[in-house]
């Protein structure tokens, strides 16, 4: 319990976590729960991270992906308001593809894909956030691509 935040700082960070989680889960209620948990964990951390926003982004994404990667939740999440939240058919289809990739990819690869593809981060920024080299990020994404290709071929 070594970290102190003002109410305003904590609220900003919850919003950071909420935005990340909401994009993954498309469920405002679940995203709110994750935002609360994320900041709670930050407050329980021993030392303040260099960038609390980055820390909350990573933690919220990890918690959200854990939910998505649970098959039961994934079905529920995909069903939940899917039509209302994804009016464009191609967006909905792409989202399903993303969720499938998240389920099969390693946690780091799933996070790298999210940061790079959805969050619009550079390889460098993603590598720093995940504490790996840029080369590792590229390799992770290449592996995701290969796995996806293989799956598509199997389906055909």
């Amino acid at each position, binding site marked *: 319990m070594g970290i102190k935040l003002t109410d305003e*700082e904590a609220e*900003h*960070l*919850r*919003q*950071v976590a*909420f*935005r*990340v989680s*909401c994009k993954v889960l498309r469920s*405002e*209620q*679940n*995203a*709110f*729960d*994750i*935002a*609360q*948990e994320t900041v709670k964990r930050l407050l329980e951390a021993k030392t303040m991270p260099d*960038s*609390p*926003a*980055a820390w909350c*982004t990573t933690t919220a994404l990890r*918690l959200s992906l*854990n*939910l998505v990667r*649970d098959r*039961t*939740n994934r079905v529920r999440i995909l069903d939940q308001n899917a039509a209302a939240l994804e009016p464009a058919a*191609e*967006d909905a289809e*792409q*989202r399903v*593809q*993303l969720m499938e*990739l998240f389920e099969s990819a390693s946690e780091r690869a799933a996070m790298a894909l999210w*940061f*790079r*593809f*959805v*969050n*619009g*981060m*550079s*390889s460098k*920024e993603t590598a720093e*956030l995940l504490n790996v080299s840029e080369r590792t990020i*590229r390799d992770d*994404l290449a592996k*995701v*691509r290969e796995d*996806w290709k293989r799956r598509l071929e199997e389906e055909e």
Partner: protein
Amino acid sequence: MKQSLRDFLADPPEPTHPSELQLDRWACGELTDDEASRLEAHVDTCPHCQATMQARRSLDAAYERIRRRRQGRRQALLALALAAGASGVGLLTGRSTGPALELREARGHLAKVMGTEPQTTGQRMLRYAASSPVAFVVAPAKGEAASIDIEIIGPDGRARAVPGSVRIERLGDGWFVSSEGRALFGHERGTYLVRVRGWRTGWGRAGPPLDIVVDFLGEVSSVDGDSGPHNTNAE
């Protein structure tokens, strides 16, 4: 998600706009003055980034809406819990320790712990009269209970439907269950199980079933030896 996933994976491009994280760090005041000025200048003139900012504002509004709703509900339920305590409701609070839930009696002079079971099972035996209000809170030690399901198992060992008058409402990071004894158990005296099951933490982990053993006394005017909470398993 403008670019298709397939195209992106074929050749992941480097971004030409600030990432969501940079915008977050900007909002949280984590950028240097120089970085903030550069980012602001870009966002001011970039239609793509302005659309991104608009989408962020929508999410922020959604966050604020839920925050206010939950805050209002929490205040209402806390007021209810306090009023319940004043009028003699047996109010229990439950907190899980590790994989199991644990119930801990908090207040209420009509509830009395009759016996103790191994703490890991989370069982407690309570006595209730028909007219006694019954209320308890179920919450995990970490995270939040995303949902719960209550089942009443009668003295004959058969499960009974939970009447609609039993209120199950969100309270903080758990659930507040309240009812009158007669609504929860009917009119048949005997030992009942209130089984809390199907609860999942906010992270999708299923919690183990929790049985609260209740000795239902039926229509009596008072509960023997009732002079306040008696929690023989108090921490």
